[in-house]
């Protein structure tokens, strides 16, 4: 069951029931001599909320940009929803919702206009666009700002609007780069509830600097440092996430 009843783009690709939603096999990304990600191998299961932890420059954003098809890997293979990111990038992009770290919005557009534009861009059928916008506006409590220009939004509303565009086409996989950025404590709690409510129906990959948030939100956590994967743990089996994180980094 999906949150939004949006007509999905036809996709006849094979999807094994228990195949990983995201599979990274020896993935590396280099910018000239600089290595942003080094031989990362990781599987993320369908329906789980997976957290990426690590300091700035550890490779979290690079990994997410690779999954979203914004960057291409220098080496290795990335499979998202059964599609290879390098060879079948469009099919991957149809199946994901992506919240970039900067929460970018078009300043000349109003919130409703922006969400309508993004829904159309993601292939939501024309007769369902209005309903899709109304549902994400309600879900993310954006009704107070729906007619406001995005340039006039507070940081919290910007973040929620950017998240709304990631959810608007009801994707199978959500990639959220620092979703709690700029939110106040109440909004952080609501964001956690929202992400938890998606678990099971959608696969969520999120990054965060806040250990306690990751602990409360995610089913499993991976720690990255200098582009390398240091470890993966289930949060339920890690009573002291902080100690584990410190021991790795």
């Amino acid at each position, binding site marked *: 069951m999906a949150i939004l009843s949006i007509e999905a783009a036809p996709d006849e690709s094979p999807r094994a029931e228990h195949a990983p939603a995201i599979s990274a096999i020896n993935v590396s990304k280099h910018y000239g001599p600089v290595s942003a990600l080094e031989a990362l191998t990781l599987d993320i299961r369908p329906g789980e909320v997976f957290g990426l932890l690590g300091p700035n420059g550890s490779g979290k954003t690079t990994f997410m940009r690779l999954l979203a098809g914004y960057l291409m890997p220098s080496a290795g293979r990335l499979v998202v929803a059964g599609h290879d990111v390098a060879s079948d990038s469009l099919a991957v992009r149809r199946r994901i919702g992506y919240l970039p770290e900067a929460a970018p919005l078009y300043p000349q557009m109003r919130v409703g206009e922006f969400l309508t534009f993004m829904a*159309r861009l993601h292939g939501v059928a024309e007769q369902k666009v209005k309903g899709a916008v109304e549902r994400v506006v309600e879900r993310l409590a954006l009704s107070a700002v729906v007619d406001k220009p995005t340039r006039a939004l507070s940081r919290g509303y910007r973040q929620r609007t950017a998240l709304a565009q990631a959810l608007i086409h009801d994707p199978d996989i959500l990639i959220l780069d620092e979703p709690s950025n700029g939110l106040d404590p109440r909004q952080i709690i609501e964001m956690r509830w929202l992400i938890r409510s998606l678990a099971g129906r959608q696969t969520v990959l999120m990054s965060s600097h806040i250990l306690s948030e990751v602990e409360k939100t995610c089913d499993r956590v991976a720690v990255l440092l200098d582009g390398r994967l240091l470890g993966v743990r289930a949060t339920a089996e890690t009573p002291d996430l902080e100690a584990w994180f410190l021991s790795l980094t």
Partner: protein
Amino acid sequence: MRTLRILFAKELNATLTSPIGYTVAAVFLLVLGYTFSLTLFATKIANLQYIFHQMYVLSILLVPVLTMRSFAEERRSETLELLLTAPIHETSIVLAKYAATLALVLGIFALSLVYAVILDRYGEPDWGQIYAGYLALVLHASLLVAVGLLMSSITESQVVAAALSIGTFLMLWFADSVSYLLWPPFDSLAINLSLIGHFKPMVSGSVFLSDICYFVTASMLALFLTTWSLAQR
């Protein structure tokens, strides 16, 4: 096609809500009006050649102002990340920006038709030459917009994009001057690259297929390179 329409509408809206387009149009019309009045009173000849040459020069200086923000601004504000992670092909993004900017430039050019109407009312202009002149301007604008988009796609800075565009246009304009310094076959290559060399005959009323092919090929090459530049990531 639906994606292209959606992106085109967004680009056109962004262009029409920005003061840049209106400023460029105002400067354009002010300079053209001055030139038209001056040449008409001085020569008393019902001819738009001066106006076409003026539009050629003005567009070289003003089109970069319209194209500079296309990709550079999206890259700076990181909205390009939204476009490039949506299920759309880079070609659609490039074509939408190209079509919207070209529509604006042609819209500004269309305002100059009032001069042709004035000449027709008070004189007997050669309409064949006027049609050829406007064809030259459409092709010229197409090339400038395509190259301007290419320059905007390779940098985050709007100023750098505009400077690169003007530099490229000036080099293309004066390419034939360099031919005297070159030896065969590079001298004829430089002559054939010249922007003014392909623009001038059309404005005089002589439409050659080779000139049309020059503008169309150069525009398509620039659009291809822009798409390729976006895909490199």
